[in-house]
């Protein structure tokens, strides 16, 4: 697969990159790790006139922990760094787990946090080379008005959101900082995503992601990421759940909870009912069952992901949610606050 002719520029600073984008944004593609962009280029799903290569910009490659455990992660920090950084593993293990679940070693050394945040939505039709897609009319995601995956799709795109690290960051209530020549803006990460398979996030063509921020908390934060896929590496997920719990330091009561699904819709999906149930006090078997039901209820997968049926993935949403909570709160055989066995 040869990529067609294009121009290539390598800005030496974030400011220079923003200036390039201000001028060429509409016909430019930003290149960081390249593990997704290069495939898009080869399959001619995107045909920019110019590539803006931001790999190596040190100012975007920092992991900054403050004394209060608030965290700023530059957009060019590699996924591998997030997976292997000792302090991230200790303070926000959910992020490290999500990062470790991405691709395989090579994808993690190349891939970046910003790249995962901006990961395009996926679908078995869309993610094919032009020569293959030409056999059918242009689909909704690429400007047409038909969806080849969901029969009644028409003008709506159901492409799946499968970015693991992004989902884990949503669960941490992270914020994303976007910068452009005209300034900076900070958006809660959950609001960065639109739920629209065609345009999954609100990044403007002239913007670059600068960093992700997780604010400090007086509570004990517990986090986890659970993912189900066919193989243990390389594959995208069929279902994923990111969980974060904020526990009172003195009483260990859960004060805030976030439960977010990946791979089961066109954006990361929060499960507010499950989150509310986690605040009710004792996590009994009944509560776990309610959480399981709530998570599966929110999951809205369509048949655009390989290897598992829609109903299986929907069920896995609930199973993974419970698995994650049990692990986080140590709710195993001896420790469970149950009256009867789950069987």
């Amino acid at each position, binding site marked *: 697969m040869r990529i067609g002719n*294009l121009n290539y520029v390598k800005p030496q600073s974030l400011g220079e990159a923003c200036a390039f984008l201000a001028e060429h944004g509409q016909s430019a593609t930003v290149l960081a790790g*390249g593990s997704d962009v290069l495939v898009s280029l080869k399959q001619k799903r995107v045909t920019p006139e110019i590539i803006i290569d931001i790999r190596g910009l040190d100012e975007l490659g920092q992991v900054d922990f403050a004394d209060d455990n608030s965290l700023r992660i530059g957009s060019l920090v590699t996924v591998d760094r997030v997976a292997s950084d000792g302090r991230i593993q200790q303070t926000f293990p959910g992020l490290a787990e999500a990062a470790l679940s991405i691709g395989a*070693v090579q994808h993690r050394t190349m891939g970046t946090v910003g790249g995962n945040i901006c990961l395009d939505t996926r679908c078995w039709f869309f993610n094919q080379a032009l020569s293959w897609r030409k056999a059918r009319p242009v689909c909704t995601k690429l400007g047409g008005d038909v969806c080849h995956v969901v029969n009644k799709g028409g003008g709506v795109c159901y492409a799946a959101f499968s970015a693991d690290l992004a989902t884990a960051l949503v669960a941490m209530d992270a914020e994303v900082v976007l910068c452009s020549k005209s300034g900076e803006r900070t958006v809660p990460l959950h609001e960065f995503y639109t739920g629209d398979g065609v345009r999954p996030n609100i990044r403007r063509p002239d913007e670059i992601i600068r960093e992700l921020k997780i604010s400090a908390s007086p509570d004990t934060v517990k986090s986890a990421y659970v993912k189900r896929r066919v193989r243990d590496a390389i594959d995208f997920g069929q279902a994923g759940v990111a969980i974060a719990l904020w526990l009172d330091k003195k009483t260990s009561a859960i004060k805030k909870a976030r439960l977010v699904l990946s791979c089961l819709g066109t954006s990361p999906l929060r499960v507010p009912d499950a989150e509310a149930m986690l605040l009710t006090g004792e996590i009994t078997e009944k509560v776990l069952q309610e959480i399981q039901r709530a998570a599966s209820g929110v999951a809205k997968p369509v048949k655009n992901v390989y290897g598992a049926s829609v109903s299986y993935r929907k069920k896995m949403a609930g199973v993974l949610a419970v698995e994650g909570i049990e692990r986080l709160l140590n709710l195993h055989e001896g420790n469970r606050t149950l009256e009867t066995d789950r069987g």
Partner: protein
Amino acid sequence: MRKLKQALTLNVNKEIYEVFVEPSRTLLEVLRDELSLTGAKEGCGQGECGSCTVLIDGRPELACLLLAATAQGHEIMTIEGLADADANGIDPLQESFIEKGAVQCGFCTPGMILSAKALLNQNPHPNREEIKRGIAGNLCRCTGYQMVVDAVESASQCATVKKK
């Protein structure tokens, strides 16, 4: 007149090359077609098989998903560069791959060995689970992986494994 090509300077296996190519050429294309370093292979071209794995500043990366232009300013090592770095002429990993029968058709082997090399540089004595995780990005259709894991384990037990 449109200028389609530009000069790139690449540091490959400790030698500096200047090539004149379109900026859209991947590192894999340039290694194979311009530099005749055909060790790295194109198995899928889209980052799902690992047969194009090379080391960039010691990290395993996929040459089919790197623009050659991006690789400028970094130390690129291909399988060809592994062999002559050690005084004995071949790396202990290469020797153990041969000994343990980890090479059948050989297509995955360059990428597989470089991933293993990166693993051993970071974790000189991995257990079998860690080895499997370290080579999880490299597919092999011949061996069934057991001999590959045996070879990496054997090389890690070899006292003369040196960090590259």
